[in-house]
């Protein structure tokens, strides 16, 4: 898609992947940070991990089984939290434990019977070795996530503000909230084996956290977070490839440094000395 600007295929694919995934994840990240469900990232990573281990054990393609299990878990989060009358974060914690246990059980058993299993590619995908098809898949997933947020922007912002007030104002909170949780989990699960867990966790939290230091309205968060994410991610990809540095960790470090600086200079924490 960006071949006309970046002739080198490896750099072009990496930049495209970083651009698409960072924009989608940082937009979803605004919702995740406001709903305080940041553990959805590693829970979905372990859903994919458990799915891949199951798939390997039963002789199925680990990528397909990782995606199937991730989608099933994504469908489960909303209704389970509703049914259990507990916060989503608690449910995500419970699911994380179960999924990790399932993954470890199958990996240990496969090692016992002499089958090898390497989960690193699944959890730590590599943006500099992507095929064109994977970049297109990432673009499609990112587009779906962005379209979903734009289509239900009103309802999503009301739910972020206060679920009970949103319900009282006549919004169908439950189906939209469950669809929102599904969309976040679905995007995380499908992007995970393409871009890897490290960058995904960073994109889901840090750009929104940086934007939050300066923005007083939610619309500003939805604009600033993806802009920050895209600029830092593309710069990280180009710099990393130019100087032969690992792209993911480099970008993650830059994001963290910007976050620390933004906390230090946040106007939200400024105490005015004015007397009148």
């Amino acid at each position: 898609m960006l071949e006309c600007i970046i002739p080198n295929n490896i750099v072009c694919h990496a930049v495209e992947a970083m651009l698409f995934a960072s924009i989608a994840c940082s937009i979803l990240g605004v919702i995740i940070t406001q709903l305080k469900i940041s553990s959805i990232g590693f829970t979905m990573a372990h859903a994919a991990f458990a799915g891949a281990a199951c798939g390997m054990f039963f002789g199925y393609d680990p990528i397909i089984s990782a995606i199937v299990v991730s989608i099933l878990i994504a469908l489960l989060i909303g209704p389970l939290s509703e049914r259990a009358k507990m916060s989503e974060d608690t449910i995500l914690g419970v699911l994380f434990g179960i999924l990790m246990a399932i993954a470890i059980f199958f990996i240990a058993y496969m090692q016992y019977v002499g089958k090898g299993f390497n989960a690193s590619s699944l959890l730590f995908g590599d943006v500099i070795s992507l095929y064109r098809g994977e970049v297109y898949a990432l673009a499609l997933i990112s587009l779906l996530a962005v379209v979903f947020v734009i289509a239900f922007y009103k309802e999503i912002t009301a739910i972020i503000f206060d679920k009970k007030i949103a319900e009282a104002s006549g919004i169908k909170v439950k189906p939209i909230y469950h669809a929102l949780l599904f969309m976040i989990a679905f995007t995380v699960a499908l992007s995970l084996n393409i871009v890897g867990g490290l960058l995904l966790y960073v994109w889901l939290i840090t750009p929104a956290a940086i934007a939050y230091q300066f923005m007083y309205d939610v619309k500003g968060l939805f604009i600033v977070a993806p802009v920050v994410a895209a600029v830092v991610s593309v710069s990280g990809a180009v710099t990393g490839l130019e100087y032969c540095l690992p792209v993911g960790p480099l970008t993650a470090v830059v994001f963290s440094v910007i976050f620390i600086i933004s906390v230090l200079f946040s106007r939200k924490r400024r105490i005015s000395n004015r007397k009148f």
Partner: protein
Amino acid sequence: MAGDLHPQIELSGVYTTYMGAELPVIRDMSIDINKGEFVIIGGPNGAGKTTLLETINGMLHITHGSVRVCGLDVTRQGVEVRKKTGYVLQSFAFDPLTPFTVEHVVMMGRYGILGCFRNPSEPDYRAVEESIKMLGLEDLSEKPIGTLSGGQQQKVLIAQNLAKKPEIMLLDEPFSNLDLFTREFVSDVMTEISSKGCTICMVSHAFDALPDKDLRIVVMDEGCIHLDTFCHSSEVEDNIRKISAVS
């Protein structure tokens, strides 16, 4: 019109139970409230007053009986009922850094009526502006709600509900965060919308700023109605005290 022949709120033999609770909070309650009535709901803590409001707007599960609001069956058409009904919650706490301005919060009152895939248009912005003006919040409209005082936040939530132009306004202790002058101001706003035909059901323990007119008072205890009568606002407190002492 058929809607005018029937009470606007009709509860018949209603039981409402919270998830996990053994006994219903509201028990065999029947009450009719007509369009434009100004009803004060009183009673001790735990009497079921908030539960009654949330039964009327369909936010709670009704185990027995029937509730009809504006001619709609609340059990099956709860969302439609909530689009016609304002509900100002008793307790709320907003993070001081929450990224929502007053104007945005008031606009949220219109979101239910707008429905999915429709953005606010001129009439919605006009309704929001009118509500903000009605509550005297013009100077605060661009401020984040978390930076306002409890009383100002209370007024924002009232404005949010007024923005939807409700047929019924349910208020749960709306005076709890307000000073005396603001109570009188909010009471005047409620009197104004009541005079335009909006039905008001207000749970309150503060009786010093009620509108200067005859009101209907409903006193509850243990999920049942112990008194349902009309009296002047100056007699509301005495009536509630008497019946609460007896029960």
